[in-house]
């Protein structure tokens, strides 16, 4: 088995404004993100040899072709729950690393705000017996929160405060980002006292619902050198797909997510990361809910099991903190979660941080950045990790 490390480079990226884009359809969002990516890379859509599109609600790759008017090139549509965007990037990287294509476009998009409701409605899917409880995402993740509190002896107040600090951090980071849906800082009190969505998760413990798109142009490093100086390199890609182990095995504890653990192990091994707590400079994680970010810090090895509260209390993951800076762009909390776009939006932030172009959010001396996605629910997830670094 070969490692993907240093075999693919990103030479251009784009990210749409995320939010309630009432005047923008799926195709408009794709035009917005890919135009920026083409301009950033200094290429035209005609230069692209193949494309991968990550989207949950659009059924084929044709929507991307229709949006940017490609002429009969191969376009593959990928869907893998909330890891959709990252999965599209992975497969595109494999094609480039294999030498099949030289210049590939990766795009992710989701138009969520046409559903008429303010929460994720899910894909509908196969006709079913309709006996499984219809559990909205906040309630799914509250299962993890309540057990985490119970297992580690956190009172409701202690647990709630731990989560609120995550909300406050991500909202602050989002306030520094003009592309975020929510650009307003909040206080701990606001987070703690917000209306309950699914006990113990309140409004600010849940990410927004937004429209958005992000895109990347990838190539091999030897070609990247001819295009720009500050391209970035892939270091590791991991994907862990669950088989309902947590639902079927009565000994699963609901306080960790194995899919993310396995995905991060894969990526760390490829990247040669031995001590992620020390080595990762910035990390975009899948904070669909605050509890997910808390548990993820333990899953990816930033904090010891059951100990993330200490790090959160110490501001370890904040822009001014001593640890990996987590969700520097505001995270899902401030960008919402347009499913197919999220993974690539995260890579966009890592790309900007590695290039030193993250403006007010810029972290000093960024060498290694990471992204993390988690799709599904406690019991069965798709977990994805990507690690990126500056060129040598």
């Amino acid at each position, binding site marked *: 088995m070969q490692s993907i490390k240093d075999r693919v480079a990103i030479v251009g990226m784009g990210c749409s404004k995320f939010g309630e884009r009432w005047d923008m359809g799926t195709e408009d969002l794709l035009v917005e993100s890919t135009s920026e990516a083409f301009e950033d890379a200094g290429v035209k859509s005609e230069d692209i040899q193949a494309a991968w599109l990550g989207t949950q609600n659009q059924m084929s790759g044709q929507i991307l072709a229709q949006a940017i008017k490609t002429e009969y090139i191969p376009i593959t549509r990928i869907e893998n729950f909330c890891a959709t965007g990252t999965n599209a990037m992975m497969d595109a990287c494999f094609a480039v690393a294999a030498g099949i294509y030289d210049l590939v476009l990766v795009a992710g998009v989701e138009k969520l705000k046409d559903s008429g409701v303010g*929460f994720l409605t899910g894909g*509908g899917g*196969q*006709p*079913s*017996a*309709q*006996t*499984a*409880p*219809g*559990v*909205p995402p*906040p*309630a*799914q*993740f*509250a*299962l*993890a*929160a*309540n*057990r985490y509190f*119970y297992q580690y002896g956190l009172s409701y107040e202690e647990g709630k405060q731990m989560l609120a600090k995550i909300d406050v951090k991500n909202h602050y980071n989002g306030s520094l980002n003009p592309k975020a849906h929510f650009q307003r800082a909040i206080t701990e009190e606001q987070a703690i006292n917000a*209306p*309950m*969505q*699914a*006990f113990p998760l309140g409004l600010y413990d849940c990410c927004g619902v937004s429209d958005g798109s992000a895109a990347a142009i990838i190539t091999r490093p030897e070609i990247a050198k001819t295009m720009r100086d500050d391209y970035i390199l892939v270091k590791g890609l991991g994907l862990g797909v669950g*088989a*309902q*182990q947590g*639902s*079927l*095995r*009565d000994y699963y504890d*609901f306080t960790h997510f194995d899919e993310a653990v396995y995905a991060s192990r894969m990526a760390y091994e490829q990247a040669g990361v031995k001590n992620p707590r020390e080595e990762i400079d910035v990390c975009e994680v899948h904070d669909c809910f605050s509890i997910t970010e808390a548990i993820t810090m333990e899953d990816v090895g930033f904090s010891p099991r059951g100990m993330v509260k200490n790090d959160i209390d110490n501001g370890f993951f904040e822009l001014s903190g001593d640890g990996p800076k987590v969700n520097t762009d505001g995270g899902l909390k401030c960008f919402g979660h347009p499913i197919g776009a999220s993974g690539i939006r995260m890579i966009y932030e890592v790309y900007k941080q590695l290039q030193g172009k993250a403006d007010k959010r810029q972290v000093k001396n960024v060498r290694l950045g990471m992204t993390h996605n988690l799709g599904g629910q406690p*019991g069965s997830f798709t977990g994805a990790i990507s690690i990126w670094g500056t060129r040598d």
Partner: protein
Amino acid sequence: MAGITSYGAYIPFYRLGKDTAGWGSPIEKPVINFDEDSITMAVAAGMDCISGGDRELVDSLIFATTTSPYIEKQGAAMVAAVVDLRRDIATNDATNSLRAGTQALRSAVDAVKAGSAKQVMVTAADCRTGTPGTEFDQTSGDGAGALLIGDEGVIAEVIDSYSVSDEVLDNWRAEGDGAVRSWEDRFVLQTGYLSVMPEAIQGLLKKVNLGIKDINKAVLYGPNPRRHAEMARQLGLDAGQVQDPLFGQMGNTGAAYSLMQLIAALEGAKPGQKILVASYGDGADAILLETTDQIANFNGKRGIKGNLEKKRIRKSVGVRGATLKGLDGGGPSASARWRDRESIDRLHGAKCLSCGLIQYPPQRICSRCHTKDQWETVRLSDKPGKIFTFSLDYLVGGVDSPLAITIINFEGGGRGMFTMTDREVEDVQCEKPVEMTFRKLRSSGGVHNYFWKAMPQRFQGAFQGIA
């Protein structure tokens, strides 16, 4: 000797009472929760009846009710499947009459005596609706009873019975009507109840050559306390001979009423007692039973007594009659539901024969050891469990908000995700004990979709039989 070999009962946890806003009466009565109906109650009574017993011996199941959720579609087939009886059995619905319960009992005894069935389970359940504020509304209650009829291990022998069929327009409910209608009270009582039920009782007593004073306990159907007392007086029964009709606790539970009163009588009975059961509706049934020595050792059932003790007074009558409408998109896929019928209706999990892990729902390939198609069926519906973790969802809304979602770990192994019912918010906590209860999830497209839910453990040991 044919007779009753086991019994079980179910009375809804929620009661209307003097502290219930909008009820306006000191009379207490059990009412179904929003997710219950006659099928779910019959299942619960059947589970109580068969607990600790052998399901393999049951050759037939009868479901008696006037409130079947379907006009065309058998309730008995569903009750039998959910209680987890064999497939090669006879099933019947006895419906459309308040005598359905006693008629079912008669048929069951006949089948056992004729040798066409070794054991017959009779389930009877009703949740009749009257116009709010009427006497009917105040004296009726919801509930279910179940009897196992057989010829071995009999605790009460059925000695004989006598029936009268009588065509009269006294109480009725036409298709599509929500509430029961009646003709003028005095006509109904004089020409119906007070004349036809005594006719059947006298007919029975003459047939068995007994007098009314020979009866130890008289289980009498009665529409309300006043008429019940009038009946006892007219028959010449002493107060001590009359089974407490449980008005103010249970109420008139329709087609299930006579059998539920009989169960209450059996709970207090000693060996060698003669019990008269009389029911009324489009005629009358009178049945004579005599308890055997075996009744002294019979226990472990929730029964009427146990169920009456477990209750919570509703804060308001608000949810009466409320139904959960399905999300748009219609009912469940019949084929998908049929494919998973064992895990949905019977709550069957599967134990891997190679590594021993119990998994729900059953899989082809073991989650732990990856062995293929080597399984042993495990019934989870009667097992106690604990809440491993939970959430309380405020987004879905509806009559059950916040929606309690729980991960249940079953005693002995196995895990599943279930919504929780008959619960207050404070009941929903990690490691709290629960038991399973069969409920209606929602009605959509003319389909009532049922599945198991968790509820706070009402009786220790769930349906394994009370120790």
